[in-house]
């Protein structure tokens, strides 16, 4: 890689956009599934989580990438974890001090970011061996790819589980059986297993469209 390479060369663009499709962290790399189950009962927390993970992933990638030539191989995992945890705690503290309402909405998610395997996965697989700018793009791309799946899953779960989107009622009240209608929310949708089933369906659709992903 020459130093003169432009910031958005073809290769760099691919780093940014691949995670959105054929290299998606959730559906292809199967990372970050646990949080995809936990926060997708409604759209709003899913979006907030997507943004937080993207921010933390992008910056921890840059930091690890800057340090990559100094990190001793045998303790690299610990170093990565310390960087992620420090960033998450600082973000949490700043939010609590200056943006208390947002910090309340994020509540448990902030802590959950530390345990998200996408972070460790991308630091280990990419940031440790690449330059800061590429690592930053990889972080943003993977954060967005993760967020995209979260939002799709949350859309279906909130729509069919609660009959609303962003907390706004979509399915008319008069349709419900309790009001003399024919419709009832699917209680299964708001329980975590349904998220796994929806992720499964997304993987199915993605694989049938993109034959490259099918194992020989």
């Amino acid at each position: 890689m020459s130093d003169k390479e432009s910031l958005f060369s073809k290769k760099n663009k691919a780093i940014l956009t691949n995670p959105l499709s054929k290299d998606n962290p959730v559906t292809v790399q199967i990372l970050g599934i646990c949080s995809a189950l936990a926060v997708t009962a409604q759209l709003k927390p899913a979006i907030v989580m997507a943004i937080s993970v993207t921010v933390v992933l992008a910056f921890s990638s840059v930091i690890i990438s800057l340090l990559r030539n100094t990190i001793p191989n045998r303790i690299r995992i610990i170093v990565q974890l310390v960087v992620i945890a420090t960033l998450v705690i600082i973000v949490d503290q700043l939010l609590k001090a200056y943006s208390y309402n947002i910090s309340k909405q994020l509540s448990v998610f902030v802590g959950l970011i530390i345990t998200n395997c996408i972070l460790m996965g991308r630091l280990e697989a990419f940031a440790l061996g690449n330059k800061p700018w590429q690592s930053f793009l990889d972080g943003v791309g993977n954060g967005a790819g993760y967020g995209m799946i979260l939002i799709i899953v949350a859309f279906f779960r909130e729509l069919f589980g609660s009959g609303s989107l962003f907390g706004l009622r979509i399915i008319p009240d008069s349709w419900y059986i309790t009001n003399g209608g024919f419709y009832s929310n699917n209680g299964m949708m708001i329980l975590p297993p349904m998220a796994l089933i929806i992720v499964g369906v997304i993987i199915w659709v993605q694989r049938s469209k993109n034959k490259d992903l099918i194992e020989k």
Partner: protein
Amino acid sequence: MDKNSNKYIFIYASVMVILVAAVLSIANISLKSAQQKNIAIEKKQNILSSVNIESTTKNAEELFNKKVLKSYILNSKGEILKGDAFDIDMKKEKQLAIDKRSLPVYEFSIDGDTKYVFPMYGTGLWGPIWGYISLDSDLSTIYGATFDHASETPGLGAEIATKKFQKQFQGKKIFDDQGNFVSITVAKANETAPEQYSVDAISGGTLTSKGLQNMLLNDLGAYRAFFKQKKSE
């Protein structure tokens, strides 16, 4: 130096830990006062919200001071203790035996009627839940309620913090017609409880709902002597 030598690893790890510790301590110390101010404002907003007064982070302080009639601390026998009710930390009080607890009460005057606000603190599924309940001057009819939580599941247990859930409490009674303390049942679909004394639980949030029910029973129950004394006045 060889990057894989023990010496290098020790030095690297030590420097990293000291740096990180320093950064985190500085962040914590320098942000603490701003954070505590936010917490106090939030508490005032919650108390105001339990008497159905909406406030913003900006006007909460002013509104609270204007609207609150008086506040005092009781013990479980209903006797008034010394101290500022606002400084009582319910988390610490709940760790004490019931007869050693300090129980704060806030009085508000709304449209000519006195409303009593009682704080409460309990456990949900993942962590603590807390809230405030305001009662009409008959000390049975609920005027308003507000709840919050530390780490309940978003979309499920966390729904206790929504207006939609809290609105259900308005107009419910915590004493039955015979004057017995019944508290409020947070009822699942298959539970039958008289409508006057119950609200609907959250689907998918059963453990949080039941935690809330226990919190109401225990923490409103702690004021029983006070209720009795006020009613006989």
